[in-house]
């Protein structure tokens, strides 16, 4: 169509320009992060006479703790943007950690759990296998959801149970230790943090500036409208869940590398931490809304809280109780935000 013929009507064009984007919604969450950190700092001085923030070792532990959660959360964020959910990531961490570790065992260790006669493999093999296993599980999640139409909650709940089962069955519950230096390098120093940041930057760009990202938001905003606009919903959902699985696999590899061992119970509860981080970061469970920058800040808030509780020597039981409150609180905030938006219309 030749649109020029409409020019004559454009004399009183009401749209002066493209306009400026509004302030990033992450700003308010960032202020919350700073506020919480300062609160711990204040309470720290008052209660135990120590600084919370001016302690490099503590900050390093904190950020290492949440890097793995952060990587999962990036994948979960894009799933939630499509108005889906992924409950399987914690179990996939356990499964991929076991698979990867079993191929990273050194031959000096005689009692090798899975493959007693295995030769030393280069670190690439366990890493790739771990990632591939996560990817495959994600493809299964996505295919189930896209092709059978069952709710994402159910499909990934199935994977949540089965993947944990695979992790336990694989070594009949035995831990896998004595991993090669090449493999454990990925868990050493600040390597997991660097990987987390690289993943976050890649997915920030992917969601903001690529067709993949635009289609992800479109599907979450209105699946039927996205379909009529020519988006292949099934294929796209499979991709989104596959990526979430891949990132859970990466998290599994890093968990095993950092612990220098793998156990079937690794990653228990990580799926909820990841969802919590995404929701605190402004991702809406209703779909269509969410940004990686928010998720990164959400992850840090989670880290600061956990680290702060330990710092104040709050009992681990209380920590769990408070974590539950945070999850519900974050969702209440999400609902409140949605309602406020609706009222405005």
């Amino acid at each position: 169509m030749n649109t020029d013929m409409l020019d004559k009507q454009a004399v009183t064009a009401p749209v002066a320009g493209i306009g400026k984007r509004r302030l990033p919604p992450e700003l308010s969450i960032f202020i919350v992060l700073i506020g919480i950190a300062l609160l711990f700092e204040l309470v720290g001085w008052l209660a135990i006479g120590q600084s919370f923030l001016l302690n490099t070792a503590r900050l390093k532990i904190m950020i290492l703790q949440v890097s793995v959660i952060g990587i999962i959360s990036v994948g979960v964020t894009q799933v939630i943007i499509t108005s889906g959910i992924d409950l399987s990531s914690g179990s996939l961490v356990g499964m991929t950690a076991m698979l990867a570790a079993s191929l990273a065992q050194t031959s000096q260790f005689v009692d090798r759990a899975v493959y007693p006669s295995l030769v030393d493999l280069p670190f690439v093999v366990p890493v790739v296998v771990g990632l591939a296993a996560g990817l495959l599980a994600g493809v299964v999640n996505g295919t189930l959801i896209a092709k059978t139409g069952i709710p994402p909650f159910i499909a990934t709940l199935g994977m949540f149970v089965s993947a944990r089962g695979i992790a336990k069955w694989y070594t009949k519950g035995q831990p896998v230790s004595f991993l090669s230096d090449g493999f454990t390098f990925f868990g050493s120093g600040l390597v997991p943090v660097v990987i987390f940041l690289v993943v976050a930057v890649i997915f920030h760009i992917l969601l903001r500036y690529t067709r993949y990202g635009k289609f992800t938001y479109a599907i979450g905003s209105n699946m039927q409208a996205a379909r009529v606009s020519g988006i292949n919903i099934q294929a796209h959902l499979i991709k989104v869940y596959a990526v979430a699985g891949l990132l859970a696999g990466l998290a599994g590899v890093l968990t095993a590398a950092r612990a220098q061992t793998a156990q079937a119970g690794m990653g228990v509860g990580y799926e909820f931490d990841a969802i919590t981080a995404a929701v605190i970061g402004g991702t809406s469970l209703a779909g269509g809304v969410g940004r990686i920058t928010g998720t990164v800040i959400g992850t840090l808030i989670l880290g600061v809280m956990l680290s702060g509780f330990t710092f104040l020597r709050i009992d681990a039981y209380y920590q769990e109780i408070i974590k539950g409150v945070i999850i519900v609180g974050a969702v209440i905030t999400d609902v409140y935000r949605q309602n406020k938006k609706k009222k405005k219309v």
Partner: protein
Amino acid sequence: MVLSPSTMAAVRKSGAIPNAEFLLTAEGIRKEFPGVLALDDVQFHLKRGTVHALMGENGAGKSTLMKILAGIYHPDQGEIRMKGVDIRLESPLDALENGIAMIHQELNLMPFMTVAENIWIRREPKSRYGLVDHAEMNRKTAELFERLNIPIDPRAEVRDLSVANRQMVEIAKAISYESDVLIMDEPTSAITEREVEHLFHIIRDLKAQGLGIVYITHKMSELFEVADEVSVFRDGRYVGTHASSEVTRDDIIRMMVGREITQMFPKEEVPIGDVVLSVRNLTLDGVFRDVSFDVRAGEILGVAGLVGSGRSNVAETLFGVTPASSGSIAIDGKQVKIDRPVEAIRHHMAFLTEDRRDTGCLLILDVMDNMQVASLHDQFVRGGFVDEKAVARVCRDMAGKLRIKTPNLYERVENLSGGNQQKVLIGRWLLTNPRILILDEPTRGIDVGAKAEIHRLVTDLARTGVAVIMISSELPEVLGMSDRIMVMHEGRVTGFLDRAEADQVSVMDLAAR
């Protein structure tokens, strides 16, 4: 007049009415939403035993005012009186208890419950043991339906009902409250001609019983058929009230838009070219069969038929949303296979769907996101990355050409009026450079001004050689815009009419046979 609570109770009890002329009055109503003054010093007076129509463009404030009267919104200022007594409406329940019931534009029924359960919810008849008495509930529903002459089974689940029947259930439910005032927000937007007639019958009965009925509509013909008085609103202000017998269609349009619209349907004769789209024996099992037609470049093919005739289904099948069971589609004489929308887009087809909210808008995303989404398959993308600058440029140009009223391109589409949302969707499809444009109810629920602009736009597109298929429930629109009209009835094409021979009677004759 403000009465003390005890006086008020006494007045209510005695049935005495201090101000007998008006059933319901609202004065000095002001309502502000963040950033928008929705109502500014608005008044409204409803007489008993009358039908009072509210007219105004989208965003004029009619629906806001009615939601205030129904207790959904609370006014910032102003007074509401029911039979001369000041009332405060804190919730929809308050409104019901004060005798005001509302039939909403959006259907608010619970799909997995029966018709009877939906109607008597919160008022279920109880048995001796305090349990819900379903037999009694179904009996009361049957009684109500008999009175209103509605042939629906009270025990049917709402999800099994057609949209039109759901609408009738909504209406029956509102009536079941035995209220004094009944507010109807576009009650005919989803029902067929015959049911409209039926509804008007019911309205006249209720009127005779002394009810006051508020009737919001965009359809001028309904106004003159059913309303006694009409109030017009514009941009959140009250313009005036007239007896409907004393005003003409043009008067009302002038009041609504504040300017003259000389010609509603700017149809132009444009040169008609070769056949672009050729459909033969298109069939979707159980829905429609043996649909065959051609559309030429520059031609506007109108598609008429009652709701449920399969009109929209044919459009969906053409576009690959629900692939055909059999039949063939040819573009420029070449057979094509379209079983997914993206294939239709690649063949330069575009499809403005019937339901803006359900299958059109990405409501929580911004104007630019909405406009670009159908073009990203083969435009503006290199190596997976979207060329944001190019997208911004074409979206700005398109928004200007379509005169979309939005603060900027980063505004969420849910904050736009219906007419502007529709223009955003038209913009979405024009960006794909269509040669075949399917429009399903292109002007449903949008105001007169935007309607005329969309009609002009469609004419302009036809002039540039786009083949247009336009489905519409509004006969004047089909008759005014089309070169040729295809009429459907119960999944079959019952005939074609040329522009010269088509009129309301000939179309309805084919549509209802």
